[in-house]
């Protein structure tokens, strides 16, 4: 089996639209986490901020695609965000012509935690109240709608389905895409993560689950993974896309090589992850990559910012990595993006792979006081890592309801940093 690499990336986050824009804003520390204005907050809401994607005008989409999108598609940011990131990733990977020549040799997997949750009830209601002829109301609500629609828009005729496993949905889809390529079913795969799902009702429920940060006075620094003063998650919308190809077939400036996956599932408690399962997912990823823990140079932490969960992650890393845990920087991309539901592996992953490709250790964000319970290297001084080579990165992605995953990526030794902001 040859290696699979990530050769193209598309990204929309609450910070901005587009891969380059997000990389720039990440470097400038300009987060999109801010007070909510797009929808009404329920009375007595404890948390009044989140990361909401900016309005997506259809004018930013290629005209050739817009003309083929329905009125319903253009009304939904869920669909428009997905179309945007797919076209961005395909363009960067330069695979449009390969798809056109061999449409059945390309897979397209859509991953989402909540899916088109927001639209379903409204569409069905619209059918009964206004448009009894409109059976598309049901079709649009199905989770299979978006993968099918995207495949049609981009001329893809290979495997095409929807993946959902809470916060690890996108990483699950990356795993499946990697296996489709490695087993020869397809030559390339497009993984799209999209969770544009916040409005009054869903946000109220997140408040009532009592896992959100209450730091209303300072939303931009509210997501504080590993900080002693962290007080909960910051939910955020996003859409991201990875193009996966065989190493020899991708353009030479690819981002990262997939070396191994780990997955463990234990949903005995929906809110609190099992430390044993977290440990297992990391160990499995290293085993699958056939690498010792000492080979890891950088860890992109799952870093929920939850008071209870962050120490579990740190303990798992300490147990597996031993003394190396003090050498290897542990960074929380959520400190910039917030917790992007099922998109994390392709939103945080987009920024993490950019750091890997450029061999750049980012500065620690939103840590104001170290937590004595966090013994992993989350409080490093980035200046001490100038010139530090990142050869391999461990990316962690733990999920609500207990689907925990980890992936090991290897750096492209021939990558240039021309795309860095």
């Amino acid at each position: 089996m040859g290696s699979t690499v990530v050769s193209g990336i598309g990204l929309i986050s609450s910070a901005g639209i587009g891969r380059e824009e997000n990389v720039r804003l990440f470097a400038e520390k300009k987060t999109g986490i801010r007070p909510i204005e797009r929808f009404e907050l329920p009375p007595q809401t404890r948390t009044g901020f989140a990361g909401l994607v900016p309005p997506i005008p259809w004018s930013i989409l290629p005209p050739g695609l817009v003309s083929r999108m329905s009125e319903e598609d253009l009304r939904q940011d869920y669909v428009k965000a997905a179309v945007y990131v797919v076209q961005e990733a395909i363009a960067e990977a330069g695979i449009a012509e390969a798809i056109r020549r061999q449409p059945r040799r390309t897979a397209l997997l859509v991953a989402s935690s909540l899916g088109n949750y927001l639209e379903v009830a409204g569409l069905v209601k619209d059918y009964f109240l206004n448009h009894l002829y409109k059976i598309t109301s049901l079709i649009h609500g199905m989770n299979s709608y978006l993968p099918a629609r995207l495949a049609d828009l981009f001329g893809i005729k290979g495997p095409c389905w929807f993946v959902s496993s809470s916060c690890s949905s996108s990483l699950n889809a990356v795993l499946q895409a990697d296996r489709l390529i490695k087993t020869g079913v397809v030559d390339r795969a497009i993984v799209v993560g999209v969770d544009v799902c916040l409005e009054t009702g869903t946000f109220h429920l997140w408040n009532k689950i009592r896992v959100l940060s209450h730091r209303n006075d300072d939303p931009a620094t509210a997501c504080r993974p590993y900080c002693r003063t962290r007080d909960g998650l910051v939910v955020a919308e996003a859409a991201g896309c990875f193009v996966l190809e065989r190493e020899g077939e991708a353009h030479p400036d690819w981002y990262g090589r997939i070396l191994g996956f780990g997955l463990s599932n234990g949903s005995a408690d929906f809110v609190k992850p099992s430390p044993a399962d977290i440990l297992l997912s990391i160990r499995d990823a290293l085993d699958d990559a056939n690498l010792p823990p000492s080979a890891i140079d950088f860890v992109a932490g799952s870093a929920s910012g939850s008071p209870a969960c962050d120490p579990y992650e740190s303990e798992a890393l300490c147990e597996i990595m031993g003394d190396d845990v003090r050498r290897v920087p542990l960074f929380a991309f959520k400190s910039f993006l917030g917790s992007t539901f099922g998109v994390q592996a392709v939103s945080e992953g987009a920024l993490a792979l950019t750091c890997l490709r450029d061999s750049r250790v980012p500065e620690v964000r939103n840590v104001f006081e170290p937590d004595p319970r966090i013994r992993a290297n989350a409080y490093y001084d980035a200046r001490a890592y100038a010139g530090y080579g990142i050869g391999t990165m461990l990316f962690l992605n733990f999920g609500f309801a207990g689907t925990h995953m980890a992936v090991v990526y290897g750096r492209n030794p021939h990558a240039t940093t021309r795309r860095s902001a």
Partner: protein
Amino acid sequence: MKRPALTRDELVTIVLEAIATVTRLRIPPERYGDNLFALGLDSLKAIQVVNFIEDRLDLMIDDSELKRFTSINAIADYFESLPK
């Protein structure tokens, strides 16, 4: 937050009603001191019990206080400890 104008027995009754609604469990008095998780709740159910109590008493319980909500007696103790 002020102490609800209820007797301890009335508070306990509301907690029992919350647990019964969320879990269908009927808790005998000798287990009012037992840890909620030992009674069969998990973290999601425990949160729903707190949400039920919040709605029933028409008040907001700060998340930082939830660590004190360990048993039926502890929840009643918490409300009794609030200023009148």
